[in-house]
């Protein structure tokens, strides 16, 4: 593999700089604190700029569907910077999960119809696949899609749906009545305020990412993609989402490392900077190692998705497993190095710690992804 496969191009590095500057401006901790307390969970003005000025929702969408036609690597860079800034926005739900489901599961006509709006950020969608069982495997889906006319009638529940209360439309994964496992799964699309959906915000541990509980009482939905053929495209979309999430997470992890090191240089105890004690130094060195290893895995996974590598699902799981432990570890160590102040509401560390903790579980924890990786390797 050429050297370029393990480094970013000059253009990608410039893109990162632009993203970091923008996100530093629009998402300082004061803004994070403001929007995490809001019901919608995001600033519509920032969303507009993110979509229009920076074209973030369009990064990896092919030009034919109104996108910019960049690769998953550029998407990874944007996500890493968003993770670093702890941006409150319905980006992951719409630009990653829903966009991915449509890209892999939708027909040509559906992609032409749906993707341009998502890429422009003028409409937002989410993917509703998890249910009260808490399983991350789509084969566990129980929501039923009963064929009615040209569409479906949906009955059942979805839980842990990212931005489920604010999405303009919802892509729900449902199964034919009586079907099991990977068989009978379909993608169904319906407006967020459709009749027969009850949307309830969940109180989330990480208030910077909003979760919803959706109850379907005979809501009418249109089919998306091949009826009862959604298992394979969904698995692909979820593997790519794991790679994407890993990139977002390493951005947050790096922020925690930077914050810990800065504080260790500043804080004086026993007449010395605490960073001069080996107990602190070694913790910081270990954080750096964990964060860099997780970055390498996240970058490799994003590159594998970009290259359509057959190993992409295994590498995505590897990256998610690595990022889950590295991010939480870095956030916990950052609190520890801050000492008492690190446990206060006033100190910002807990904002990232909560994102790290929730992201550890989101799309499956480290043990789940290690197991997935092993299955891909057998």
């Amino acid at each position, binding site marked *: *593999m050429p*050297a*370029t*496969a*393990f*480094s970013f191009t000059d253009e990608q590095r410039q893109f990162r700089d632009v993203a970091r500057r923008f996100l530093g401006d629009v998402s300082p901790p004061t803004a994070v604190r403001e929007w995490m307390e809001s019901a919608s969970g995001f600033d519509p003005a920032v969303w507009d700029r993110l979509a229009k000025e920076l074209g973030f929702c369009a990064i990896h969408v092919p030009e034919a569907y109104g996108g910019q036609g960049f690769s998953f690597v550029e998407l990874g860079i944007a996500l890493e910077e968003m993770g670093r800034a702890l941006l409150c926005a319905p980006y992951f739900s719409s630009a990653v999960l829903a966009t991915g489901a449509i890209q892999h599961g939708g027909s040509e006509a559906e992609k032409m119809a749906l993707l341009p709006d998502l890429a422009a950020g003028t409409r937002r969608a989410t993917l509703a696949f998890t249910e009260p069982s808490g399983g991350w495997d789509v084969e566990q889906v129980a929501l039923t899609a009963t064929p009615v006319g040209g569409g479906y009638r949906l009955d059942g529940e979805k839980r842990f749906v990212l931005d489920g209360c604010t999405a303009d439309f919802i892509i729900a994964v449902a199964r034919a009545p009586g079907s099991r496992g990977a068989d009978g799964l379909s993608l169904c699309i319906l407006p967020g305020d459709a009749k027969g959906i009850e949307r309830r915000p969940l109180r989330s541990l990480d208030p910077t990412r909003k979760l919803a509980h959706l109850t379907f009482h005979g809501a009418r939905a249109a089919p998306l993609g091949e009826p009862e053929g959604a298992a394979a495209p969904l698995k692909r979309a979820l593997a790519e989402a794991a790679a994407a999430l890993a990139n977002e997470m390493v951005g947050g992890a790096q922020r925690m490392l930077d914050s810990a*090191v800065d504080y*260790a*240089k500043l804080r004086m105890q026993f007449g*010395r*900077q605490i*960073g*001069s*004690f*080996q107990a*602190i*130094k*070694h913790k*910081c*060195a*270990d954080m*750096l*190692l964990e964060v*860099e*290893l*997780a*970055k*390498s*895995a996240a*970058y*490799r996974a994003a590159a594998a998705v970009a290259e359509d590598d057959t190993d992409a699902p295994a590498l995505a799981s*590897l990256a998610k*497993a*690595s990022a889950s432990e590295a991010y939480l570890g870095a956030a916990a160590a950052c609190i520890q190095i801050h000492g008492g102040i690190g446990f206060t509401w006033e100190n910002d560390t807990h904002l990232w710690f909560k994102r790290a903790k929730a992201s550890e579980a989101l799309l499956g924890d480290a*043990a789940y992804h*290690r*197991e997935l*990786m*092993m299955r891909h*390797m*057998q």
Partner: protein
Amino acid sequence: MTEPNEAGVRAQARAWLAEHWDAERSLVAWRGMLADSGWGMPHWPEQWHGRGLAVALSQAVDEEFAQFGAVGVAKMGIRLLAGATLLEHGDDFHKERFLRRILTGEDTWCQLFSEPGSGSDLAGATTRADLDGDNWVVNGQKVWTTSAHHADYGLLLARTDWDAPKHQGLTYFVLNMRQPGVEVRQLRQMNGHASFNEVFLTDAKIERPYRVGAVGQGWRIAMTTLAHERRGADGLRGSARERLGEGRIYAEEAAETATLMEPYKWYPQRAGRVDLVLPRARETGRIADPAVRQAVARLLVLARSAEWTARRARADQELGRPQGPEGSLGKLAASHVARAAAHAHTLIAGADAMLAGDDGPLDGLIAEILVSVPATSIAGGTDEIQRNIIAERVLGLPREPRMDSGPFRDVPRNVGG
């Protein structure tokens, strides 16, 4: 990366090889030709057995040699560290006297730095060299000396000034190992191998011209040697040559390699033998156990991300970008990988992990892994020292207050050291 005249250099190297290569020549005679023509170490200066080429072009020449199937100059063992150090800090006498015989492989070298009382704290060496007339007289003990039992010369770090601060009282010498004041004893390790030696120095003599650099400059010069060691010039990389030809020169080279590599034969086990983990898990059927699967997966996550981290560092280096933090993490990552591999091997082996030798799995190889891995986090700089280096040089954290400034004579040190 493409240099402007890489193709030209490659063509020149090929033409020279085509004209001069003869597999029936003796190894020393052939390497003499390489040393005289400059094709053996193309990035060394023309005056000293090189061609003054950039390192990247020198690598291209190496590739041509590998493709052609030609033997190169002697690169294994400590000798190349000696060559690089003498090239940088030696005077014309040293270069004249030693460089050619280093390249031909006629002389074998060892490194006399570590001592029983100064391991991580190398600058705390207490082996002393005192000037007596025209000779330096050396007394003390060195340890962890690879190849000392068949070395002709040693790179010696010794204290020449006890009133100077620790790092400024050391001087660098070339010690003739073939003399009565030098006694070499093998040092047996916990894994049963004896790859290293203890070297006892009792009134060993060094003639004045064998001092390298100025008196008191020894630490700085030793840093050069260690930098080359860290850059991987430690001679542990095998030849990239795939085609093994027939002829006298190949036989002589194979014999030399066998001798020099003998102390390192357990090194792959020291690194944990990650390559064996998945095949072993499958063959034993242990892969069906969820705890084993998690341990194996943990190891693979670690091993692969460590490999990619190293490749990120190399890629940036090749693109001429400043080195990021990735470049400093390899050694620490390798310790984690080795330990995770040993853990996975233990789970896979089950009760068999208690057995060694013919009774143990893979004829004792697994046992050798389990009892060799602890060396990884010590040899070449302990994990703790690595963490200090990373914290101070990469993250910019402040150094600890020092207890060893002032005259070395007054610095607290090990009893008897």
